[in-house]
C-alpha cells in the first residue's frame, strides 16, 4: 500500500504539504487491511469507515487551519486491544470483555487523538497479555506475515503482524515481560519498551502493574521514536508516571555512535539460544564495531533467576489485578446463578481462558498465607538484585546488546503445549521489565528458513535517546528494518492421482519494500 521505504514521518510531511489527504490515507489503509487481513488475522476490530472518514475530516480541518502539526499528524495507527478506547470495543482478547465498550479513553488513546492520529482498529493479542504467541486469544489466530505457519509472537502479536504485513505503518503494543520486543523480533519490525513510567498506564487494562508499559511499534526506528514522542507525556492519573523533559526522541535518530560502549552479556548467547540467532547478534556486534562502537563480551550475573522471579511476581500481580472481573460492573456475567458466590465462580471460570486461569491460580498461591515470604517476597528480593546487576553493568557500558528472543518464530500450535517451556523462552526480555529499563527490538538478519531475527538494545533508565541513536545508526547501515515479507507465490502442484493441490511456495524474504 505505502510507497517503498516511505516512513510514517515522511507520509505525515506529505499530508501537511497537502500532497495527499487524510481521507486518502484512511482509504488506502482500510483497503490494505481488507486485502491482507484474511491471511494475517491481526485485527479484532476495524473501526467503521464512516466514523473514520468523519475523524479524517476533522484532522484535515486541523491541518488546514494550522492548529495541527507534529511528526505523525494524520497517520492511522492500530492499537492493541488492552488499551481502552472510548466508544471502540476493547476486549483484551478475552470472553470476559467480549462486548466491553470503554466509557473513557486511555491516556495513550487521548494522546493519539491530540496528535491527529486516527485509531484504525484494535489488534489481537494473548488474552489479558498473558502469552508469547498470541495463541491464547479467545477469538482468533494471528499469523506471522513472513510465514503463515508460524506465530507472530506475543502478546502484542496483532500489532506487530499488522505493521509487518503493511496493513498499518504504526501500532501501539504493551510490554510486561517482552510483549512488544519479542513479537517485533518474530515479525521483523521495530518495537520499544520505554523506561517504566514514561508512558501513562491510565486505561491500559492491567496485567502486572509494576512492569506494564505501553510502547510504539513501527517498520523503522525513526517512526518508533516519533510515536514514543507522542506517547511520553506526564499523566497525574498514573501515580507511577514520570515527568520527563527529554522526550524529543525523534531528534536522537542520528547516525553517530563513535565511542559508544556496548556490552554483550554471554548468558544471552548461550542459555538455550539458537545458534543462528546467536550468530546474527555477533554479526550485529561486528557492524556496531565497524560503525565506531566498542563492543565487549562480559558476564552479567543473575540472568538465570529472572524468569522464575518474573513469573512469580507477574502472576501475583495478575491475580490481584484480575479480581475486578466479578461480573457486576462490566464485562461478562454467567447466567442463572444461585447466589452471588456462585455468580463470581461461574463468571470467572467461563470468562477467563486456560492460560489466564493458570496464572491467577499461581499468583493466588504465592500471595496466600504461608507462601508469601517463601515465593513472592523472595522474588521481589531477586528483582532488587537483578536490577542492581544491570546498574553495575551500566557503570561500564552505555548499552547492552542481546537477542530479543532466543529463537525465531516457532510453528503455530507448538509453543503453548508446555507452559513452563513457553515461560522459559522469555529469558531475553523479562529481566528488562524487572529492572524497569528501556529497550528496543529491531531486525538484524534472517535465519536459514527466511524468518527475521531481532536484536535487543537495553539501556539504563531514561536512556531512550542513546538506544534510539544506536538502533538508528545500525538500521541505516544494515537496512534490515525496511524489508517486508514477500507475498506468498501461489504454486499449483498436481498430486499423484491428478488432483490439484495448492501450496504456498516462498522465496527467501530478501526483497526490500
Amino acid at each position, binding site marked *: 500500500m505505502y510507497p517503498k521505504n516511505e516512513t510514517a514521518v515522511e507520509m505525515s510531511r506529505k499530508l501537511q504539504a497537502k500532497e495527499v489527504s487524510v481521507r486518502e490515507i484512511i482509504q488506502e489503509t482500510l483497503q490494505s487491511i481488507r486485502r491482507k487481513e484474511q491471511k494475517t488475522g491481526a485485527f479484532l476490530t476495524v473501526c467503521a469507515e464512516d466514523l473514520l472518514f468523519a475523524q479524517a475530516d476533522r484532522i484535515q480541518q486541523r491541518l488546514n487551519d494550522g492548529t495541527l502539526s507534529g511528526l505523525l499528524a494524520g497517520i492511522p495507527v492500530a492499537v492493541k486491544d488492552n488499551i481502552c478506547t472510548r466508544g471502540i470495543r476493547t476486549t483484551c482478547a478475552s470472553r470476559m470483555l467480549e462486548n466491553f465498550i470503554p*466509557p473513557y479513553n486511555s491516556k495513550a488513546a487521548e494522546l493519539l487523538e491530540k496528535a491527529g492520529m486516527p485509531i484504525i482498529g484494535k489488534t489481537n493479542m494473548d488474552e489479558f497479555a498473558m502469552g508469547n504467541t498470541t495463541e491464547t486469544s479467545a477469538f482468533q489466530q494471528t499469523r506471522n506475515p513472513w510465514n503463515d505457519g508460524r506465530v507472530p509472537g506475543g502478546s502484542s502479536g496483532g500489532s506487530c503482524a499488522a505493521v509487518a504485513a503493511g496493513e498499518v505503518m504504526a501500532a501501539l503494543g504493551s510490554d510486561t515481560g517482552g510483549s512488544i520486543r519479542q513479537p517485533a523480533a518474530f515479525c521483523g519490525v521495530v518495537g520499544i519498551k520505554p523506561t517504566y513510567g514514561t508512558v501513562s498506564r491510565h486505561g491500559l487494562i492491567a496485567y502486572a502493574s509494576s512492569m506494564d508499559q505501553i510502547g510504539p511499534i513501527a517498520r523503522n526506528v525513526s517512526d518508533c521514536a516519533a510515536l514514543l514522542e507522542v506517547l511520553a507525556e506526564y499523566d497525574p492519573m498514573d501515580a507511577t508516571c514520570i515527568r520527563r523533559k527529554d522526550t524529543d526522541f525523534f531528534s536522537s535518530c542520528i547516525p553517530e555512535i563513535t565511542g559508544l560502549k556496548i556490552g554483550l552479556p554471554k548468558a544471552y548467547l548461550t542459555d538455550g539460544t539458537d545458534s543462528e540467532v546467536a550468530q546474527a547478534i555477533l554479526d550485529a556486534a561486528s557492524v556496531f564495531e565497524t560503525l565506531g562502537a566498542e563492543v565487549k563480551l562480559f558476564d552479567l550475573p543473575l540472568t538465570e533467576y529472572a524468569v522464575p522471579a518474573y513469573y512469580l511476581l507477574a502472576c501475583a500481580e495478575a491475580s490481584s489485578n484480575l479480581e475486578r472481573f466479578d461480573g457486576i*460492573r462490566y*464485562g461478562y456475567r454467567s447466567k442463572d446463578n444461585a447466589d452471588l458466590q456462585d*455468580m463470581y465462580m461461574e463468571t470467572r471460570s467461563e470468562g477467563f481462558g486456560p492460560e489466564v486461569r493458570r496464572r491467577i*491460580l499461581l499468583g493466588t*498461591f504465592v500471595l496466600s498465607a504461608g507462601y508469601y515470604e517463601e515465593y513472592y517476597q523472595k522474588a521481589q528480593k531477586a*528483582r*532488587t538484585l537483578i536490577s542492581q546487576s544491570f546498574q553495575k553493568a551500566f557503570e561500564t557500558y552505555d548499552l547492552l546488546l542481546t537477542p530479543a528472543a532466543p529463537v525465531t518464530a516457532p510453528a503455530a500450535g507448538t509453543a503453548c503445549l508446555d507452559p513452563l517451556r513457553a515461560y522459559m523462552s522469555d529469558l531475553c526480555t523479562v529481566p528488562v521489565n*524487572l529492572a*524497569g529499563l528501556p529497550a528496543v527490538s529491531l531486525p538484524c538478519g534472517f535465519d536459514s528458513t527466511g524468518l527475521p531475527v531481532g536484536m535487543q538494545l537495553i539501556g539504563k533508565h531514561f536512556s531512550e535517546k542513546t538506544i534510539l541513536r544506536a538502533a538508528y545508526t545500525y538500521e541505516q547501515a544494515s537496512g534490515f528494518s525496511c524489508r517486508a515479507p514477500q507475498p506468498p507465490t501461489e504454486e499449483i502442484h498436481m498430486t499423484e492421482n491428478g488432483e490439484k493441490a495448492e501450496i504456498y511456495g516462498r522465496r527467501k524474504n530478501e526483497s526490500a519494500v
Partner: protein
Amino acid sequence: MSEKITREMICQISELARLRLNSEEILQAQHDMQQMLDYAELLEQLNTDGTEPMVQPVCYENIFRSDAVSECGTKGEILSCAPRAQSGQYLVPITVENGGNENVSEE
C-alpha cells in the same frame, strides 16, 4: 524441595481465586503449579539476606496530587457497561438468602 502441591491445596486456592475447576482441571492445575514451583526453587540458591524487596523499579517517591474534582464518565455511561442494571443501580443475585431471584444491591 519445593512445596508439594496437593489436590486439597488446588481446591483451596481455586476457592480463593473464585475459579471453579472440574476434576480434570484440578489435576492439570496441580501438575502446572508443581512444575512452576519446582522451577522457582532455583531462587533458593540466591542469597537475598539483607536485600530489600523491590515493589516497583523506577519511582521511589510518594506522589501527591490535589484532591480536586475532575471530569469522569456519567453515571449512565458507567452503568451502561454493567451486565445488568436497574433504576440506576447494579443488579446482582440475591446476597443474603438462597434463591434464584435477583435483587437490587448498591455496589
